[in-house]
């Protein structure tokens, strides 16, 4: 493929994007919704994925949710709203940023922009046990979102879609901001679990976003609380005991690291309260 001599190249196939990424290296960047690259990478060649068919597709059935990388936050919210197991994702997609940004910013951009530390979709999808499917020059690869976020894939790749298994569980996504809306969250907790009638949380998954540079699971807290009867007060106490051991808060202009850690227990407690209320049909 001959490389066009222009600074924004629209491709129609993933293979074209991979070819350009390989040839242009650091001088190029993938453009999805554009909400980050237009702020941070204007000197690079944009490789726009907007004209690749299928990347905006979303399919939802009883077994699985599949979201194409170019689906916007608004698309995702519209697709999953009302599904109790996917409530965390609906909130993350429907409350992040602003309405205008949610119509532009994509799933792929949210997960692949490593310099953006306040992604909402990342913790929500971690709590929902999502897998990512990548296209690389050696073929298609599927790995857990957790592995993808923890270990950067250095070779050229395009995130093609994300798969979320549907299960009979509840989920919640709680975010703290300085204002009610329109800011980046200072801290985010996404949580999902199956709730037994006696209040026991089973297969508990907790993810924390915005506190460190990348969203990640809170495995230590999960181990303490899984298969236990948990109220919002009891899990708050466990979270308070663990927070400073398990996270190093990120200092940034919107908030100090110590504060992000300080609020985590309250967010976890709120998330447990939210899933308990939905389980009771509230």
């Amino acid at each position, binding site marked *: 493929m001959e490389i066009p001599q222009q*600074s924004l190249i*629209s491709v129609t196939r993933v293979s074209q994007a991979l070819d350009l990424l390989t040839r242009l290296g650091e001088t190029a960047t993938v453009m999805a919704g*554009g909400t980050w690259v237009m702020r941070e990478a204007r000197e690079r060649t*944009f490789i726009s994925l907007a004209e690749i068919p299928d990347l905006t597709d979303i399919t939802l059935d009883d077994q699985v949710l599949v979201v194409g990388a170019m689906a916007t936050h608004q698309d995702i919210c519209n697709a999953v709203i009302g599904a109790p197991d996917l409530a965390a994702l609906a909130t993350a997609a429907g409350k992040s940023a602003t*309405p*205008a*940004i949610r119509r532009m910013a994509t799933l792929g951009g949210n997960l692949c922009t490593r310099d953006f530390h306040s992604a909402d979709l990342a913790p929500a999808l971690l709590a929902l046990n999502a897998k990512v499917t990548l296209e690389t020059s050696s073929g298609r690869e599927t790995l857990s979102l957790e592995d993808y976020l923890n270990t950067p894939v250095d070779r050229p790749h395009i995130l093609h879609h994300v798969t979320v298994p549907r299960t009979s569980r509840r989920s919640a996504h709680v975010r703290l901001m300085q204002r009610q809306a*329109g800011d980046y969250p200072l801290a985010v907790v996404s949580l999902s679990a199956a709730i037994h009638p006696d209040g026991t949380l089973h297969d508990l998954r907790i993810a924390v976003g915005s506190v460190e540079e990348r969203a990640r699971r809170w495995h230590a807290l999960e181990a303490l609380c899984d298969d236990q009867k948990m109220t919002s007060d009891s899990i708050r106490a466990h979270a308070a005991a663990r927070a400073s051991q398990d996270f190093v808060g990120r200092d940034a202009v919107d908030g100090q690291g110590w504060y992000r850690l300080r609020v985590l227990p309250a967010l976890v407690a709120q998330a447990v309260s939210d899933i308990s209320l939905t389980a009771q049909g509230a």
Partner: protein
Amino acid sequence: MVLTLMINGDPVPYHGDPRRSLLEVLRDDLHLTGAKDVCGEGFCGACIVQIDGVPKVSCLLPVGRLAGAEITTIEGVSNSETLTAVQKAFLEYDVVQCGMCFPGMVLSMTHFMAENPSPTRAELKSAMTGNICRCTGYERIIDALLSLGSNGLGPVEEVRP
């Protein structure tokens, strides 16, 4: 790159870097200064225009992705003889103060009211996220929008949270 932008119903040829933002092209090249250059990061909404009828922040839209799209700026929502229902309500309720948020507010709220003709006060506040009014005139803006009523037939019932 050479492309044709369709702005307020008129074809406009563009020659230049396709990575330039639509906002830059509107203001600096075409002197359509209704969209305001404020935060440059998509937060404030002062630069909002409609792309194919949908409000988006023009500061984060590269012009190279807009060939074939219908771009509507505040200059194109009405002519000098008429005002839209939202503009009339804003005028009647005297909502315009410094004017920086006003164009984006009109373009955002016109779309929202078309999709939600009988909103509650809380829904309007949620929809206005991303249109920052630094004069803090939100309540009058909301009053104006609520006055439009369902399909413009009369005031809707206000439901305060």
